[in-house]
């Protein structure tokens, strides 16, 4: 019983949140990793693209809500998602046309793309705030929990509760599906392979009859889709505020890089590494240990490896360690 | 001069070099041939410190140099060229050559800042030397061109040129001839002979052009599947059944169509 309690405790405060957060990061990191893998630059605008996609989805959600359309118990936002994706694709393709295409023709260095993406980031940033404002926005509806901590306690009679949110469930499932799909797409389909070929050697891809414009377009379409999905799911789970999406960029990049840039599987792995290290290293194990050991042994300190102030630092520390042993990430990513 | 003892290099589960032992005598021009993928370039890379060996060791004049980084080997007089040209593509041809000489005063920040006179006089010398090399390789007209814009063959020449900028003890040439015009290659061959005779350079060269090997090299070492298959004079090698089967082949099966 005690053992079970300990396990539930750990699940509730460490495993479930870490898995959910890890999947969120992974979804974001997938977009970053894809653009890096195909177009060979770190896209700093990705966080704001997520915000843009999520914003459009929210606007549609509100509209649906006002018309009374819903898919209870699932959130209405899922219904609005395709529209958000479409608009986001349009937006991203427009930025490519206006901004990136020029540098591609110039065969500019990756760092130029990177800085240009910062420009796009600034502008997108502004656009999103113009349209929806800098405030917190609520748009979640439908059932909120799959299991709620209190209900769980009542159901099982255990001392500890376990909660699992609908949004967490959707995120985890989506992340896994998307990774599989992307992996399959890049490694098995003709278009996917041609995209990898393009990223490897652009000139030779041309000589093989691969249409570079199409490759680039497909890459952006996928990236925009991923960004909208990630942004919306994140907003459903937490809340939508443009500023957080900028902040999200850092852990997302950390995840993409620790997993190995360009590798979809790496993005998932990286997301989990970052999420788990953040949560596990700063967790206070006092209660957990108390369940496991005889009463007299109970620790009187918190048994916290590091204070939560260092949570970000910890995840980066782990990232550094990983990179020291695997300089291009866990799944041996690319580097330009 | 160079002694390679039971060297092995593994990539994943695959042994690119497998228990290879060989010796390069001082003052010789040793040829290294073998089928594609025999492990020749890998062997060079291990000797030159690019890869760490999985087993075995390398001796230079009796000193164990296994695993030393490339720049330390350079300082010991061991130079190499790359099979796939590694030019500095954003620098001009002349700069590519001028950066080679070691111990330039101007490469130390202190001197660069506060001893401009010394730096300038050294630069003049190095520049002269570079111009000589450029002249010799017949690439004067592209001396100020970015090296990245050179033709494939010109890049290989530049590879070779860099080794001529310093006094080396031993030079490893990885297919300098591939892609180089045969007439120019003959001139290069003459230069190699001259450097060998007059300045006492030792050479070890990988090459697939048997005429070229035949003209310069003695002895010739044949590698296959990571190990040394045979060693001897060019004539020995040419008549070695194993070598013929693995490497030399017996000529064209199809008779060339002779047009009317």
């Amino acid at each position: 019983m005690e053992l079970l309690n300990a396990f539930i405790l750990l699940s509730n405060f460490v495993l479930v949140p870490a898995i959910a957060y890890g999947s969120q990061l992974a979804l974001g990191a997938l977009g970053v990793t894809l653009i890096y893998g195909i177009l060979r630059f770190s896209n700093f605008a990705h966080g704001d693209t997520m915000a843009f996609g999520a914003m459009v989805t929210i606007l549609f959600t509100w509209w649906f809500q006002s018309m009374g359309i819903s898919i209870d118990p699932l959130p209405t936002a899922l219904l609005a998602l395709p529209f958000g994706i479409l608009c986001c694709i349009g937006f991203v393709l427009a930025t490519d046309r206006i901004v990136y295409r020029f540098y591609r023709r110039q065969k500019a260095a990756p760092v130029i793309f990177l800085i240009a993406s910062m420009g796009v980031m600034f502008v997108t940033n502004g656009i999103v705030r113009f349209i929806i404002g800098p405030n917190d926005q609520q748009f979640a509806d439908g059932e909120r929990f799959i299991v709620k901590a209190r209900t769980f306690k009542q159901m099982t009679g255990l001392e500890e509760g376990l909660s699992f949110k609908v949004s967490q469930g959707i995120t985890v499932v989506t992340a896994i599906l998307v990774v599989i799909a992307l992996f399959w797409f890049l490694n098995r389909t003709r278009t996917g392979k041609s995209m990898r070929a393009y990223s490897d050697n652009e000139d030779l891809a041309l000589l093989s009859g691969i249409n570079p414009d199409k490759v680039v377009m497909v890459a952006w379409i996928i990236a925009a889709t991923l960004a909208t999905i990630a942004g919306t799911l994140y907003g459903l789970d937490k809340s939508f505020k443009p500023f957080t999406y900028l902040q999200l960029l850092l852990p997302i990049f950390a995840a993409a890089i620790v997993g190995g840039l360009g590798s979809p599987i790496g993005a998932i792995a990286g997301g989990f590494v970052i999420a788990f290290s953040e949560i596990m290293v700063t967790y206070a194990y006092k209660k957990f240990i108390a369940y496991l050991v005889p009463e007299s042994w109970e620790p009187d300190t918190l048994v916290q490896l590091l204070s939560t102030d260092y949570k970000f630092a910890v995840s980066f520390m782990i990232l550094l360690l990983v990179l020291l042993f695997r300089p291009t990430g866990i799944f041996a990513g690319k580097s330009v | 001069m160079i002694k390679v003892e039971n060297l092995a290099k593994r990539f994943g589960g695959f042994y690119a070099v497998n228990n290879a032992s060989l010796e390069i005598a001082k003052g010789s021009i040793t040829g290294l041939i073998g089928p594609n993928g025999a492990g020749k370039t890998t062997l060079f890379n291990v000797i030159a410190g690019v890869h760490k060996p999985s087993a075995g060791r390398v001796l230079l004049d009796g000193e164990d140099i296994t695993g030393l980084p490339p720049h330390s080997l350079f300082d010991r007089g061991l130079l190499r060229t790359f099979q796939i040209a590694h030019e500095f593509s954003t620098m001009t041809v002349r700069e590519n050559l001028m950066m080679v000489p070691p111990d330039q005063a101007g490469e130390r920040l202190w001197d660069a800042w506060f001893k401009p006179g010394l730096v300038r006089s050294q630069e003049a010398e190095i520049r002269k030397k570079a111009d000589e090399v450029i002249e010799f390789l017949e690439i004067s007209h592209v001396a100020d061109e970015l090296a990245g814009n050179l033709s494939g063959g010109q890049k290989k020449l530049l590879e070779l040129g860099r080794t001529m900028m310093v006094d080396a003890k031993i030079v490893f040439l990885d297919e300098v001839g591939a892609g180089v015009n045969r007439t120019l290659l003959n001139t290069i061959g003459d230069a190699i002979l001259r450097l060998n005779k007059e300045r006492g350079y030792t050479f070890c060269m990988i090459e697939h052009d048997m005429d070229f090997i035949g003209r310069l090299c003695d002895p010739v070492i044949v590698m296959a599947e990571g190990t040394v298959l045979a060693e001897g004079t060019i004539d020995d090698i040419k008549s070695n059944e194993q070598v013929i089967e693995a490497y030399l082949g017996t000529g064209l099966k199809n008779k060339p169509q002779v047009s009317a």
Partner: protein
Amino acid sequence: MSYLSASNMTGGYGRGADILHDCTIEAAEGEIAVIVGPNGAGKSTAMKAVFGMLNLRKGSVTLDGEDITRLTPQDRVAKGMAFVPQTSNVFPSMSVEENLEMGAFLRRDNINGTMEQVYELFPILKEKRRQNAGELSGGQRQQVAVGRALMTQPKLLMLDEPTAGVSPIVMDELFDRIIEVARTGISILMVEQNARQALNIADKGYVLVQGRNRFTDTGEALMNDPEVRKSFLGG
């Protein structure tokens, strides 16, 4: 009129000086044409010009009588041209097999047969087909590059120094194969520094010097021309 006819090509890279001057190159159906010349003469440039990777200031390229001077390289691939560049001619982080598949990117039919043929020609590639091309030896890479072009099943095959770095036995195989390919009616345009072997199998040879046609004749004739031998074929 030859199958491929690139006439009076004049042009260079970007805004730089002209590298080709009035350069003309032709290859008839089923014919092997070989370009030789000193380093930096403009051989690779001429190939790129034929393939549309260079803005020509003058001259035109026709394929099978059709003027393709304005077409993009991609469109030329669709017209049945295939090209193996001299450098960076593989996809380094894709496996050997994927490299070959990319060669057949525009083909809609079953490519397994062609792939088998390529493996037959270069047995080592079959062994290494799951390995990334970037991890191959120089000569093996060269084989992948040629294999990729063969996968296209082109009508015109253009090879820039296909034998650079390959062992004698593979070179012989390669030339054998090229002769076979040509016999099926495919035109071959090839730059070679292993010039004597190449001219040996060539129907037609071009000697380019400083971007201009210096000599043009049958392969055999060029081989036997003492001046050509001395200045360009290494005696």
